[in-house]
């Protein structure tokens, strides 16, 4: 087993990896940029190495500096977390050359799955369903129409020249094909200088279902069931669950999709933990989207239903161990939900909200887990991803887990910055969400219809009173000079109000 692991990441995922390293008796060394000197991952680490200034390309994305930190600290393996260098095949090769074990898949598997077209070809060869569509742009309208008919309406027209929604059109039937095709070409020409259009099957109200894979170096590949991550804003996941609510509607889906996940990983010669992502439709059909060749942000929901420690399994596999269990020994118990606590303002288009966390209370008790990279008094830096913590709850079934989540969200309080906590508090009250009627467009539609009047009149009154009391206290304080140090000031405030 490794003696020391360098964690080439920051924030909550670095904290997550530290915890398992330490529980395995492995020294946890971390790296930090200047913006992160006081970050929680540094405070919890055994060792910490400065790697550079705040911009990620001068620190967490800088391969040479990461490798130097590993050499200087005497680490024998590197855990990349997610993001940053975690899916960078050159980094994997550089680790190999430096004699450091990269805790993750091989560079070859990473490259294969990192290429959209190669991954799609490999999946088709392995019999894993992909979104039906043309691989070449249509040469004419007639060809496009023919292809659309062969695929079956509704179809999606997509610009070959680029993405971002430009030149993209949903076409419901053959009758609508002609005008939409022309408009799409025009938009594509304007946006990318290339009018070419290809055609894909349109997945209506798609649901994001993914399969967690574990594979060792001896050809053993198992899955740890599926997750559903259909709640997304800005194409980023916000709330994830395991198992997938969609499976309740289509009981055969679990067996089919997990089998496809294992086949996908096997076809890629995949080793270590990975995730095969699919889009599914309301009928329970599913299509390969991509494979994430690393630990996922949302891995804790799988840990909660299987009671496995995925980081421990990653480390063991990288150290050459065989999988510790067979497919039939993987448990599935209860239901888990994760909420991503972002430093963002949900009332202002999820705009970033870095800054000082002036107070922080985290929930606890049965069935509640918090994976956090934040602490009270810490300033969330503006340089990196806004994910500051994850709240994960477990209970015996989905209804109970939602109720548990509701309770935990009420206990969870962050002031000083805006977070997505209030957004989740509203989401868990939503009937559609509670019924599991979710898809990747859910949040967008929900934001449209959410402008409900707040119903708790008593709490509104208290909000006004609280603001009034604070207003008077602040006014009183600004008119006299406080000569007291912090803790005495706190005490004085507690003893006597409104002075």
């Amino acid at each position, binding site marked *: 087993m490794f003696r020391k692991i360098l964690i080439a990441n920051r924030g909550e995922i670095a904290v997550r990896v530290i915890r398992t390293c330490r529980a395995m008796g492995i020294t946890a060394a971390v790296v930090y940029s200047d913006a992160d000197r006081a970050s929680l991952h540094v405070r919890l680490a055994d060792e910490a190495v400065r790697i550079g200034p705040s911009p990620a390309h001068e620190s967490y994305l800088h391969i040479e500096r990461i490798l130097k930190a590993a050499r200087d600290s005497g680490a024998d393996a590197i855990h990349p977390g997610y993001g940053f260098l975690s899916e960078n095949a050159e980094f994997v090769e550089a680790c190999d050359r430096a004699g450091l074990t990269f805790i993750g898949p091989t560079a070859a598997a990473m490259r294969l799955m990192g290429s959209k077209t190669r991954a799609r070809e490999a999946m088709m060869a392995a019999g894993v369903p992909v979104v039906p569509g043309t691989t070449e742009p249509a040469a004419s309208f007639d060809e496009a129409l023919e292809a659309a008919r062969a695929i079956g309406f509704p179809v999606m027209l997509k610009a070959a020249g680029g993405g971002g929604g430009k030149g993209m059109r949903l076409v419901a039937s053959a009758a609508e094909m002609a005008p939409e095709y022309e408009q799409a070409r025009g938009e594509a020409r304007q946006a990318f200088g290339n009018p070419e259009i290809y055609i894909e099957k349109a997945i209506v109200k798609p649901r994001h279902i993914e399969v967690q894979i574990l594979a060792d170096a001896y050809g053993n590949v198992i899955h740890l069931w599926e997750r559903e991550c259909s709640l997304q804003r800005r194409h980023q996941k916000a709330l994830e669950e395991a198992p997938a609510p969609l499976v309740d509607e289509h009981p055969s889906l679990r067996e089919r999709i997990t089998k496809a996940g294992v086949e996908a990983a096997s076809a890629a010669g995949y080793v270590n933990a990975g995730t095969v992502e699919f889009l599914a439709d309301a009928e329970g059909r599913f299509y390969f989207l991509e494979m994430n060749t690393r630990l996922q942000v949302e891995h804790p929901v799988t840990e909660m239903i299987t009671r496995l420690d995925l980081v421990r399994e990653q480390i063991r596999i990288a150290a050459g161990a065989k999988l510790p269990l067979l497919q039939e020994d993987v448990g599935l118990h209860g239901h888990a939900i994760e909420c991503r606590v972002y*430093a963002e*303002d949900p009332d*202002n288009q999820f*705009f*970033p*909200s*870095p*800054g000082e966390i*002036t*107070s922080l209370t985290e929930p606890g008790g049965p069935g509640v887990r918090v994976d956090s990279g934040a602490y009270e008094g810490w300033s969330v830096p*503006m*340089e*990196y*991803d*806004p994910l500051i913590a994850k709240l994960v709850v477990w209970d015996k079934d989905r209804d109970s887990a939602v109720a548990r989540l509701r309770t935990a*969200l*009420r*206990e*969870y*309080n962050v*002031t*000083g910055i805006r977070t997505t*906590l*209030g957004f989740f*508090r509203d989401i868990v009250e939503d009937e559609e969400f509670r019924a599991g009627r979710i898809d990747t467009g859910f949040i967008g539609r929900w934001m449209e219809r959410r402008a409900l009047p*707040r119903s*708790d009149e*008593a*709490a*509104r*009154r*208290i*909000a*006004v*009173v*609280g*603001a*009034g*009391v*604070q*207003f*008077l206290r*602040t*006014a009183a304080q600004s008119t006299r000079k406080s000569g007291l140090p912090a803790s005495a*000031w*706190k005490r004085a*405030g*507690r*003893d*006597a*109000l*409104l002075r």
Partner: protein
Amino acid sequence: MKLLSTIGDTQVTLELQRDSSSSVSFRIDDDSGKADIREIAPLTYSVIEAGRHYDVRIYERGSGMFDVAVNGEAYPVTVTDPRRWTQAGGASDASGPRKIKASMPGKVVKLLVQEGDEVDAAQGLVIVEAMKMQNAMKSPKAGRVAVIEVSEGGSVAAGETLVVIE
């Protein structure tokens, strides 16, 4: 002490009277009550009123503007003291000069206008970046760029003035 307050879009009058170190009588318009209020930590209160308990966290946004989280649910509340009405900043006249302030701390990636430019309402003025997101700060009205207080590549704090439009 009689105050004016808004919660969301509703305006109310608020009277507060301290009965003892922890007991406060209040009247909001015609609705009165008595609350037991303890400061748990700066900006954090425990409030018991009519048997119910409320965990209250306050975030001061300045100029009498507060975000008040009651049992986790956030309410935007403003408070003004009518006796100090003239000093209280308040919303400035729509026809006067307007300061465009950064809504988040970040880095000024790009200036989209120059001093002296004529701009339309909702025209982008400055692009600020934080956490990999770019945010175009827009003009609240048609007018002329009077002052640009930041430069490209510089950092700004939340609430800092970026541009003045007149």
